[in-house]
């Protein structure tokens, strides 16, 4: 630590303590205002609950943290493995990324019950769901990082007659390190989320189990206390990885967690054909993987459905029309809540980022808070929002909006900072007003970050809506999956998984297409050449 940093420590600690005290006072006042409404437990009663039940919560926390840590390890190793495959076989990039996306889009709340049946009792589902929650958000930045080094560095390696291995050892690993760390930072709270969702599916221990019990018993103190513990652990994990990273790679750039899209190039028919071939290849691989896993482990067909079972259930069975109707009803119920929530969160996040760009004095304070809140798992905030806003559409839409708001805000603030300083200086030189600076320089620079958040928020929004429907509303695909899991209607459960995964992948692709069209029109320099 530098002498300057040592000198600044007391002031920093003072600011943090003052902020915490301010939040506690606000929280207490809010709790007094709504006292008796089963919405909000104040800090005093929450603290009291934590003290009285410290042993119970500590044991649950240890279990959840262990599962999350194993999932974090497995998921990130998978991400590194996938990224290395793409590095070794660059032609596989689009296909591997597409298959990885579809797997990432599998709804945790539905795969959880299936995994529970497959694994039986024990931590298997929790660890698997934690791994599934993290691998994609590490894989994508790592893909960028492994290709991020300037060409001259590789020229230097080649100049001495050295090959790909030397380039990997001497250049790529270290060049990719900041990107890997950015992915790991996002992964740490995501692993915690995955482990908690896994615990919803019939585990006997862990914070997820305590959350379900508290919610069902309308135990407001317990719900808030568990949320507070889970949120704190996630934030600590986020900051701990950042702290470690600062010591490994001292000058980390701000990383956008997405690849820069390729430009729209070639005739429309050719582009459509390419997309069709990629879509078909992805479908074939995913279906083949699905079938292979089921057959390789000789899983019982009663609960481990194969692709042909789902085809029969939805297309060729006598009651196929009724099955499709049930799915359609649930899907539309989900769609009408997820779309407004997704758009509201996204645009409110971007809007606040733009506002902060006009009032930069506030941005310095908001960004750390937003980054911290971004790392709070939705399974901890969802019950609180349900308590506060009820089990109707408003609560669900709010949960989805919260899920997309913080990633959008953080990404847009970082994106706005990508505007070239000299261009801004030039505008200031001509006394251009801040709105014009925003319009001509900062918004075009922000767009890739905005769309990166928009793409990654699609599966996140679907996770949020299904969690809300499962925990609270009793409508939509989330509720359908919870119901089918409890009634062992595995055909309908697997059909719902397929619908959600395909829907999320389609939404992701749609946002990617809009991104390419918008960037081609307003900021073509942001497209990959």
């Amino acid at each position, binding site marked *: 630590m530098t002498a300057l940093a040592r000198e600044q420590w007391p002031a920093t600690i003072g600011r943090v303590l003052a902020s915490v005290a301010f939040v506690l006072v606000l929280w207490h006042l809010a709790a007094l205002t709504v006292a008796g409404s089963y919405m909000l437990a104040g800090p005093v009663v929450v603290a009291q609950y934590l003290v009285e039940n410290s042993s119970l919560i500590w044991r649950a926390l240890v279990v959840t943290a262990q599962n999350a840590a194993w999932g974090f390890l497995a998921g990130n190793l998978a991400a590194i493995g996938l990224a290395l495959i793409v590095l070794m076989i660059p032609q596989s990039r689009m296909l591997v990324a597409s298959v990885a996306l579809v797997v990432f889009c599998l709804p945790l709340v539905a795969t959880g019950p299936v995994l529970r049946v497959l694994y039986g009792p024990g931590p298997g589902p929790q660890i698997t769901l934690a791994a599934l929650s993290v691998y994609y958000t590490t894989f994508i930045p790592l893909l960028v990082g492994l290709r991020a080094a*300037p060409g*001259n*560095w590789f*020229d*230097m*390696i*080649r*100049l*001495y*007659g*050295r090959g790909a291995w*030397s380039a990997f050892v*001497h*250049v790529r690993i*270290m060049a990719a*390190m900041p990107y890997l760390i950015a992915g790991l930072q996002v992964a740490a709270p995501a692993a915690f989320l995955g482990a908690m969702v896994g615990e919803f599916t019939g585990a006997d221990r862990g914070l997820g189990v305590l959350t379900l019990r508290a919610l069902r018993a309308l135990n407001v103190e317990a719900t808030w206390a568990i949320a507070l513990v889970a949120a704190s652990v996630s934030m600590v994990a986020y900051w701990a990885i950042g702290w470690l990273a600062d010591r490994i*790679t001292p*000058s980390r750039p701000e990383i956008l967690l997405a690849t820069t899209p390729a430009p729209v190039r070639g005739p429309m028919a050719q582009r459509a054909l390419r997309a069709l071939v990629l879509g078909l290849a992805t479908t074939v691989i995913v279906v083949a993987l699905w079938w292979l896993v089921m057959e390789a482990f000789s899983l019982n067909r009663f609960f481990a459905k194969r692709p042909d079972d789902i085809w029969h259930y939805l297309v060729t069975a006598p009651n196929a029309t009724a099955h499709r109707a049930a799915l359609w009803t649930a899907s539309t119920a989900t769609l009408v809540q997820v779309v407004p929530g997704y758009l509201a969160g996204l645009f409110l996040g971007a809007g606040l980022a733009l506002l902060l760009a006009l009032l930069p004095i506030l941005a310095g304070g908001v960004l750390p808070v937003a980054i911290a809140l971004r790392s709070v798992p939705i399974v901890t905030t969802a019950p609180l929002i349900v308590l506060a806003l009820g089990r109707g559409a408003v609560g669900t839409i709010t949960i989805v909006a919260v899920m997309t708001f913080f990633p959008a805000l953080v990404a847009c603030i970082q994106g706005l900072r990508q505007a070239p300083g000299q261009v801004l200086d030039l505008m200031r030189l001509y006394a251009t007003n801040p709105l014009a600076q925003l319009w001509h320089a900062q918004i075009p620079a922000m767009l890739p970050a905005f769309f990166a958040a928009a793409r990654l928020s699609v599966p996140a929004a679907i996770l949020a809506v299904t969690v809300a429907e499962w925990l609270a509303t009793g409508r939509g695909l989330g509720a359908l999956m919870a119901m089918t899991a409890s009634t062992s209607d595995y055909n309908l459960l697997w059909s719902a998984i397929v619908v959600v995964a395909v829907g999320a992948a389609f939404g992701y692709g749609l946002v990617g297409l809009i991104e390419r069209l918008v960037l081609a029109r307003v900021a073509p320099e942001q497209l990959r050449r």
Partner: protein
Amino acid sequence: MAEPMSARGPEIVCEAVTKSFGDGPSMVEAVAPLSLSFAAGQMAALVGPSGCGKSTLLRMVAGLEQPSSGTINLDGETPEVLQRAGAFAMAFQDASLLPWRSVQGNIALARRLARLRADPEAVAEMIARVGLAGFEDARPAELSGGMRQRVAIARCLVTNPRVLLLDEPFGAVDELTRARLNTELPPLWKATGTTCLMVTHSVREAVALADRVVIFSSRPAEIVGDIAIPEEARSDKAARLALAEEVSVALAQGWDEAGTAERLAAQ
């Protein structure tokens, strides 16, 4: 592995070399059919307008780009053979240092890549020769642009290369540092008999440093002037400045029309 036998540079022969990028209507012809050779141990400067293909030629000599047609030989060998022998060193327009390595780490890496034994003394000596003693453990981010460029030069020289390729290495350096580097560095490579090709925009720099100045047209690169600089002209400051001035004026007026190539060659 042992040091290279000798730093004596090879003769470089380019025969009917062309290079184009892309295909179809978007094809760009960077280098027109070009035949020229550089004598062993020669220090040649390649001068021409931006984007004319000088750097592409340099990269083809280094084996970093393959010619679209034609051949490049160095003492009868292909560039790839010399790459594997650790015979090349190259300085780019930016220093291209690895940011996570210190000054000595960056320089030592070149020896490792060139399959030479680790030699901390050679590294330390090279750091001292480029005037960076005391900065051994500094990271590139802690150095000025000129200092970083000197590290890049030290990285080139620490392997005792047979072929030194300089792609506008002083382009991003301030005038004072540039003048200093121009004075201090040439003796380092000239002493070893290295064949050296340097791309530069500065006619004055080319005339000051090189035995020979090759002048290229706009893209696709064709040779429009090829001047041998006599030793006495380089040691005589006034003659050097006059020559540089004349070349610059001739370039500005249009090389062929002025017909100055022959006149300068005669001088």
